[in-house]
């Protein structure tokens, strides 16, 4: 590694825990460590800390605390929402609808349900990664019990029309779930005034600790438990609560949703400078995702003739942390299922780069990336047997 400070532009993969969040957590590791289910004083303190975190999460979603259930992360929330609703409503129907560009926590859960005898429709997306409500109307039947479409995509940042999709879903008497793991803490995600029935979020995507998450379950939704055992989370999610983690997530969501608009504007400005800089300096690129309906921090660009992993390794050698596809699927050799779903040819999808920015990024860093990335791309293009016309 060269003598260069770290430029972290992979905030969609994970974020550092905010120092104030660490500070909020520490007392609940050592001093106030009681089991929230016990009745003595130190345990009651633990219980109050959890209630206060629950109120903070509820506030950020504009809903009531008794509709928030803590989980071990976005993956568990997605699994719970989808399996829980599918099994609890199996008598009414065995059909589930989702989209082709969901995170694996949703897609692999749906594939598991197919093995259990459910039928699943995977809605297509357009070139920008948008689900068309007309497609939903075409697929939904009276056997459909659940529609699950993400709030915003983790790879290309596209923001889906979930409000509209949710009302169509309700017209047909099914439940609507949205994986809002990438959206919460990065844009306003109110559930009030919408017909969203279930919503997943994950703490480590907004400077909370990893291994924390929540599921919003609208009152009255028929859903099975996924973890059975003790009476925690009002009998809905068993297991001794991740006390410090929950306290941390509460603090993190409070920090993240404070001044959300202004932070979003700053991030968007840096991101846009990056995009135009890259497009200016490097030929043969394609911007992936929607030009305006996109998360403020997300940038996803494909570079023809080169492959993503080698790009990441070279960027890492310059101290730049980035991603190709989602981190969860690295190690996989398949090109991104999201990019393929937008109609991109596999060979180009292989050369895609995702940079995801946050408030902590600086103009300096943007400039550094704009100095470094062209070198990296041309070095790899020089090595590539494809597209001699490039560089």
């Amino acid at each position, binding site marked *: 590694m060269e003598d260069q400070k770290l430029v972290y532009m992979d905030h969609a993969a994970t974020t550092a825990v905010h120092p104030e969040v660490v500070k909020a957590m520490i007392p609940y590791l050592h001093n106030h460590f009681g089991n929230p289910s016990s009745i003595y004083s130190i345990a009651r303190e633990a219980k109050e800390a959890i209630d206060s975190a629950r109120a903070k999460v509820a506030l950020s979603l504009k809903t009531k605390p008794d509709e928030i259930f803590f989980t071990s992360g976005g993956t568990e929330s997605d699994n719970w929402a989808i399996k829980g609703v599918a099994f609890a409503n199996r008598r009414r129907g065995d059909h589930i609808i989702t989209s082709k560009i969901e995170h694996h926590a949703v897609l692999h859960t749906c594939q598991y349900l197919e093995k259990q005898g459910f039928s699943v429709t995977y809605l297509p997306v357009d070139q920008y990664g948008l689900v068309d409500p007309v497609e939903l109307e075409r697929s939904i039947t009276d056997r459909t019990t659940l529609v699950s479409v993400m709030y915003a995509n983790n790879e290309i940042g596209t923001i889906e029309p979930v409000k509209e999709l949710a009302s169509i879903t309700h017209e047909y008497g099914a439940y609507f779930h949205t994986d809002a793991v990438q959206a919460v803490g990065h844009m306003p995600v109110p559930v009030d005034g919408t017909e969203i029935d279930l919503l997943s979020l994950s703490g480590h995507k907004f400077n909370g600790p990893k291994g924390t998450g929540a599921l919003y379950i609208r009152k009255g939704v028929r859903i099975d438990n996924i973890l059975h055992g003790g009476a925690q989370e009002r009998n809905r999610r068993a297991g001794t609560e991740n006390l410090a983690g929950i306290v941390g997530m509460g603090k993190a969501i409070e920090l993240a949703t404070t001044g959300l608009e202004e932070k979003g504007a700053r991030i968007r400005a840096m991101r846009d400078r990056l995009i135009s800089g890259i497009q200016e300096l490097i030929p043969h690129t394609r911007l992936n995702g929607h030009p305006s309906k996109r998360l403020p921090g997300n940038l996803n660009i494909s570079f023809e*003739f*080169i*492959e*993503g*992993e*080698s790009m990441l*390794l*070279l960027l890492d*050698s310059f101290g730049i942390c980035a991603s190709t596809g989602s981190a969860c699927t690295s*190690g*996989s*050799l*398949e*090109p991104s299922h999201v990019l393929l779903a937008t109609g991109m*040819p*596999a*060979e180009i999808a*292989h050369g895609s780069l995702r940079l995801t920015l946050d408030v902590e990024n600086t103009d300096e860093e943007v400039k550094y990336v704009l100095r470094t990335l062209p070198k990296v791309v041309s070095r790899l293009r*020089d*090595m*590539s*047997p*494809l597209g001699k016309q490039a560089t």
Partner: protein
Amino acid sequence: MYSKTVMDHFMNPRNVGEIENPDGVGEVGNPVCGDIMKIFLKIDDNRITDAKFKTFGCGAAIASSSMATELIKGKSLEDAWEVTNKAVAEALEGLPPIKMHCSVLAEEGIHQAINDYRARRNLAPWEEKAHAHHDEKEDCGCTTCNTG
């Protein structure tokens, strides 16, 4: 995840480029799968006097190309033919299981280049052996192996 040697050959790849008027060329892989390797050979008196490559692919693919070309330079065609994917992987101090196919690609690239040289001389092609990793039934992770 990569060994030091892999990283060294990725960061400072040996033998990158093309050979003008090569005596044999091999091109293996598939852009859809995310890797293409092109091997150029200069052959003198049944001996590989120069080898170069161009590769579209991941870190392991580039390092495998670099190492493979290093290993065959100076070898007789018979000896070069015997440079297996395992030998390439071992010289790299190991590859993650999911990346072993990159070393297979390198072996195949060399074989194609040698057979291309033989074809140009109207010699019958030498026969490919089954690749080690297919024998071992190890899941290399590549789509081709998985789906077929």
